[in-house]
């Protein structure tokens, strides 16, 4: 964890202070907490009556009703839950592409999501996709205390999920922060991530260089992770072709997200860094003003 990354986490904390996690109804499960759950629990809020069934807590029998009606009626109270947010951050080398703000924006997003979760009195857990899906040190606490967030891995998220998927909290909210630029069908990755989740959000972080490359003329294109290279002659036609390929790639991911019940948005790293706002996340109902 470098000093600059720590500054980026603090930047993200400051930006996330303005937001709170918009908890979907499906996510109202979990340990005892601030939020009212969908099930009956042990809170003081009355919910309903029902007939006693063997195994029910004898302490929940409403003895006054038994006295009047000679029926064993059990009082039900509303459950109090604490929703959980799993923040999955792609730490491959492409997320720290030299000359771009992808790394800074990704760290800011992770930190902001954690702060928004804290603002919404939800728990959170930060994960990083390295050689496998691993927990960020201190990932359940303040983002400024996170450690081990290094963007130098060369394993694709799909392969990392296969190697060791994260132990996500059931019915939690899961957010994947990545550039999504790896080959292969994304549906497998998304289904793995969406399994048991109350909601899944996919945030594609692209550098402006990824969206609209400034390469012109002859160029040797080198993959920052695999170091594979291709030689191309970049002109207006090639730029159009690249834009079309990127659009097809994004469309493919959006279709996969729909199939997996996830919502997806794309942000430009440089714009995020410049504005410190997450309007796109608001539009996808992930964040809301605090």
């Amino acid at each position, binding site marked *: 964890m470098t000093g600059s990354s720590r500054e980026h986490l603090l930047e993200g904390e400051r930006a996330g202070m303005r937001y709170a996690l918009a908890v979907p109804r499906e996510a109202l499960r979990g340990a005892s907490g601030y939020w009212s759950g969908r099930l009956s629990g042990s809170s003081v809020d009355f919910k309903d009556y029902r007939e006693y069934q063997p195994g029910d807590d004898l302490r929940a029998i409403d003895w006054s009703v038994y006295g009047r009606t000679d029926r064993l009626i059990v009082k039900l109270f509303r459950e109090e839950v604490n929703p959980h947010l799993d923040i999955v951050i792609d730490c491959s080398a492409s997320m720290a*592409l*030299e000359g771009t703000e992808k790394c800074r924006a990704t760290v800011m997003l992770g930190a902001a999501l954690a702060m928004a979760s804290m603002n919404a009195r939800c728990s959170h857990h930060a994960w990083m996709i390295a050689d496998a899906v691993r927990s960020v040190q201190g990932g359940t606490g303040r983002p400024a205390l996170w450690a081990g967030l290094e963007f130098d891995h060369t394993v694709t998220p799909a392969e990392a999920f296969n190697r060791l998927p994260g132990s996500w909290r059931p019915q939690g909210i899961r957010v994947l922060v990545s550039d999504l630029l790896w*080959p292969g069908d994304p549906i497998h990755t998304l289904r793995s991530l969406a399994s048991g989740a109350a909601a899944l959000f996919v945030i594609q972080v692209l550098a402006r260089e990824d969206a609209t490359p400034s390469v012109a003329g002859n160029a*040797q*294109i080198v993959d*920052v992770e695999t170091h594979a290279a*291709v*030689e*191309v002659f970049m002109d207006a036609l090639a730029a159009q072709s690249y834009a079309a*390929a990127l659009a097809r790639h994004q469309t493919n991911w959006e279709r996969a997200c729909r199939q997996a019940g996830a919502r997806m948005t794309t942000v430009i790293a440089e714009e995020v860094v410049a504005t410190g706002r997450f309007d796109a996340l608001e539009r996808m109902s992930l964040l809301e003003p605090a």
Partner: protein
Amino acid sequence: MPVLLYPLALLALAALPTALAIYLLRNRFKPTLVSSIVLWEHLTRPKGGGIRVQRLYLPLLFFLEIAVLALLALAAADPHLPRKSVERLLVAVLDDSASMAARGGKGAARSRGLRALKAEVKSCRANAVRVIVAGTKPLVLDLPAEPGAALGRLDGWKCRAPRAALDAALAMALERAGSHGRVVVITDHTPAEDVMNNRVRWIGCGEPVANAAIVEASRTAAGETDRCMAGVANYGTGPLTIAATLSWPDCVTSPVRHLEIAPGEVKRFTFAVPGSARVATISLPDDALAEDNRADLLHPVEKKVSVDIAVGNQVLAHALRSAVESSGLSSPMPVWPRLVIADETGSFASADAWIVRCRTTAKPVVFTGPFAIDSDHPLSDGLTIEEVTWAADTNAIPGTPVIAAGNTILVGERALPGGARELFLNIVPEKSTVQRAPAWPVLVWNLLHWRAESGPGPRATNVRAGDDVSVNVGRAVRAAKVKGPDGHSTERAPRGGVLSFCADEPGGYTVNDGSASYSLSAQFLSPEESDLRRCATGAWGAPQADVVAPRAFASCAVWLALAGLAVAFLHLVLAVRGKGGS
């Protein structure tokens, strides 16, 4: 192997690596890191692409540009390629003197020489022949270069000339042959040592045979009877008895002179011929050489001058008149005299008369010598002025000095418009002794002879073959026809009223200037050619191998430049149409 005329122009080939560098720099791929090449792999890749730069992408236009640069650089160097057809030249010098026509036991030397020449052309594999005939002057025959055609048309090789200018012809042949051609000399005698070199082949076809020849012949007018003199030589190895026959038109019985002549001796004899006989012929019996067995002598020219002496000084007039009468060159004076000798201030009506103006009245200065004489002037031929006194006026007289004493011109002359001459005689006879000295009649004879020689007609009717002949035809004549011994007429242009030509063959010549016709006779009279004892057969000089073909080259710069422009045009077309790669 091509030869480059301007090899430094090849420095322009440095443009080739420059063009290559431009393409390499243009095609170099700048490494660029991206997040993933997933989105790039489908983009069009350069042909033959690879990780390493360029072995890959040199389009057709590049090779066309390289070709244009190379072709233009080579064209600027002006390469010369060896030509396929190369002339292997043999220059033949043919002895055109009469001795080549001498008949011996093996036939005429000319026939053997022609066979030798054909063999020589064949042996050295020459494919081009030039022929120079060595007569009195070398003459290049206008023949086709192809050997077969040239050797079949040697009509110009007549073998009648009284001498052969072989040295001049050989020098001309060596010049014509250049540095690679060979020279062969066909003659009838051995070569001089100093004319041979490794490019000259000398072939002698002569045969030493005995020959009798007329080597001297002349005819002099002496009143009504002309005197003829002839000399007959015996060029044999033993004593010779021969009959010389004399004849002329209207001669009833031709006189015969029997001569006994020792080997190498010339026997001379004289005989008289009527002055009315136009031609007198001396002939010898046939022998090895026909040309020297006959001499035709025409009646000699008698040119006389009508002289009018009108000098006031009686002493001078007497001296002049005596000298003129004794010269034998004066003729009775017609209406218009051709030479007028008068006082300095006289005037004369005749336009073509020569005038001698005599200055006799001034105060004289007596000169005793030395006297300066223009020895090249016709008036000074044989003139010696010594031990005499010449009194003359010291004032200047016009004209070019002929005889002078110090700064005083004693005799001067100048040309007048129309060809006449004006002479000045500065003499005071009363105080001079020159008019009584032997130089006086010589001076007057020269004056009359000069004037007589300027009259129309040949200066001599009997000449030696090979000599230059001069015929006065008048200044108004622009062209005159000369008919030679072979009957062929040529038109020649006189210069200054004098027609000059070379009588290069023995025989009769006729000159017709349109208004008058003059005859001349050229006698062979060539002892060197008549003496056939020194003729020899043999070959000298190294045998001529194949004639070395000169290394001829032709420039191909134009073709290279045209090819370069054509490729450049193709480049332009492909570039405009967007083909050829980019």
